[in-house]
């Protein structure tokens, strides 16, 4: 029995042969609806903040610098490529591209920053972009609002090797406990 099993195993291995791809020289085709890196179209975005409200990783940050200027920052280092932002966006300003080879040394390389000029509504004082229809009310803002760019300071820094200086510095980190 042992021998027949071994013969069967030999056949099982021989039939498919080598299946490993010679990546990166040989690349398998990327399927059309892959959820790759989200790409933002500043022409279409009306700055409604829907994407930032619904991003499970909270990596789209919104900040109103002043009444007329809203900054949107997409922090790709924390993105989970779930595609929720693209689903939510009322203006289809976000597309999930098919790029997935996005490992890099510089966080900035996968960060997108948009500065949007907003108009103030004469009646309610809220912001929206002038020439587009207002979609604020179409989006149900239920979630948590993350509009503090400084929160990024809470993302801890790490070093390749043990760094006593960095450890020392971590003593000064704001810990929620000593806020009170």
């Amino acid at each position, binding site marked *: *029995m*042992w021998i*027949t*099993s*071994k013969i*069967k*195993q030999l*056949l*099982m*291995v021989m*039939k*498919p042969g080598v*299946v490993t791809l010679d990546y990166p020289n040989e690349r*398998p085709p990327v*399927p059309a*609806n*892959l*959820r790759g890196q989200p790409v933002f179209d500043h022409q279409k975005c009306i700055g409604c903040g829907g994407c930032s409200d*619904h*991003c*499970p990783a*909270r990596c789209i940050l919104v900040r109103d610098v002043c009444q007329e200027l809203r900054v949107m920052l997409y922090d790709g280092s924390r993105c*989970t*490529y*779930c*595609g*929720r932002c693209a*689903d939510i966006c009322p203006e289809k300003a976000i597309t*999930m591209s098919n790029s997935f080879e996005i490992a890099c040394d510089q966080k900035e390389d996968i960060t997108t920053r948009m500065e949007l000029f907003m108009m103030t509504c004469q009646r309610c004082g809220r912001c929206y972009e002038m020439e587009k229809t207002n979609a604020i009310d179409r989006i149900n803002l*239920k*979630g*948590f609002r993350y509009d503090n760019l400084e929160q990024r300071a*809470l993302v801890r820094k790490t070093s390749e090797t043990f760094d006593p200086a960095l450890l020392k510095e971590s003593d000064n*980190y704001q*810990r*929620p*406990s000593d806020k009170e």
Partner: protein
Amino acid sequence: MSIRKELEAKLIARLRDDVVCVEKTDERTIYIDVKRAGFREASQIITASGARYLCSIGYDNIERDGTLAMVHTYALDDSNRFVCCRASAPVDDPVLESITPDLPSAGWSEREVTDLLGLRFAGHPKPKKLVLADDWPEGIYPLRKEVPHDFVPQGAEDVAYQLDEAPPGTKIVPVGPFHPSLHEPEHFAVYVDGETIKGCDYRGFMTHRGIEKLCQTQVSYNEVPFIAERICGICGSVHATAFSQAVESAAGLIIPRRAEFIRTMMLEIERIHSNLLWLGVAGHLIGFDTVFMQAWRVREQIMWLCERLTGNRKTYGMILVGGVRRDITPDIAEDILNVVKKIEDELTVIYRAIEKDTSIHKRTKGVGTITRQQAIDWNLIGPVARARGVDIDARRDHPYAAYDEMKFEVPVLDGCDVWSTLVVRVVETFEAIKIIRQCLDKMPGGEIFVEMKDKIPAQRHAITVVEAPRGESVHYVVTGEDNRPERWRVRAPTFTNLQAVPLMLLDEQFGDFPIIMGSIDPCFSCTDRVAVVDLQTGKSSSISKAELDVMSRKRLQGNQLQQVQK
């Protein structure tokens, strides 16, 4: 007499005034509120009426009435009912009676609640730390509402977990802090006498990420499924589906039938993936890398299929509260059928090639044995239980999604060992393929998503069970304010099965440790370093993974040698 009335009568007969109320919230869930004096006895009465213990959930009720509450949950598998027994204790005297002496598998649930909420259990046989880090400060209970989700206490030096005393005459072999092959952290201290394992103690939860706390404080209902999916890299859809079902059941939301079919299909695709992955890992653990390579080659096709279907190889991101995100088009349906056909053929070839291989039998038959009765006592679940003659499967016993319309077999074997587990999982893969075909066959048209129109009322409780490839996952949700759950408890299958591992290891050979561990398909990883401490001299040396592999392989070669000589 209905099941609820029957239970109520039994409880009142024994506990009288301690029973506060017995109510049925939906078709299949019965809630029992008892005073704390009768908590353990109520549990005894419930289990005596044939219920199987699932898990326990603690939650913080301090703001409302100054208590910490605890829920024990049970399943009545014959009649598709869940029984939840609740009691609470005031926060200044947070003690309840432990049920672990009656139900050994409640041990971890109770220790977890003690760690995270500060509720103590009188009479617990092993009231040690389970979840929290060794240097976590006393008196801070992270799941209480007053503790912020990003609280980071100062670390402390010189604190270590006190492992159990080794039985006399044995030596300790620590395995960990990473598992020797699954690449997840865990720490076992294995007590060996020569090569024979005489017991073990476990220290884990090193990857406790506080997901429950995060979801209870930061995100909203529709973002939790994405986080739930990341609880486990393999049964992602299981957790997302379970969470969504729990919320839907609390909110009374009915989702479109088509969405239920798609969910069922995703769960079965995931099962094929997981079983093939496990088959490969099991082969690797016993040093049979041909199985590993071939099973994973076959598995690769399902990952590519999922990439076309959902946009990603794993973490499908398909499930939301209220339905699913992507529809199944006729093109993709055909694609699915082709791929599962191919997998069916190729898996048959693999199975034929290994089913009679005596060298595999030698390493897996009669290894990791526990009896059927022990499996029931420890509430084993999933393929591990089915390989030990326990006939449970949540898909059949507590149908969810579209499983009520599916026809499939539940393989039950009574070999009680690792080999039977392997066979069960291979057979289940074939069953999964059958289910996928039925899904595509019978899938009704219509919507795939229904919007949540109203606010979900707070303070509703819901429990749901989903059969993951490695056993059932239990999710319990207490709805809350601000569009997010107030308490969300996930009991992954490993949580239960791992507790019985010491029993499986007893009197086995140390070289079999990896495969016995691996046979429950634990959801943590096992890697490189094994330190051997000689108790007598206190000297410690390290075995690398390579050496452990060599030890493991030597057993295989020894077996083959014997075989050839025969």
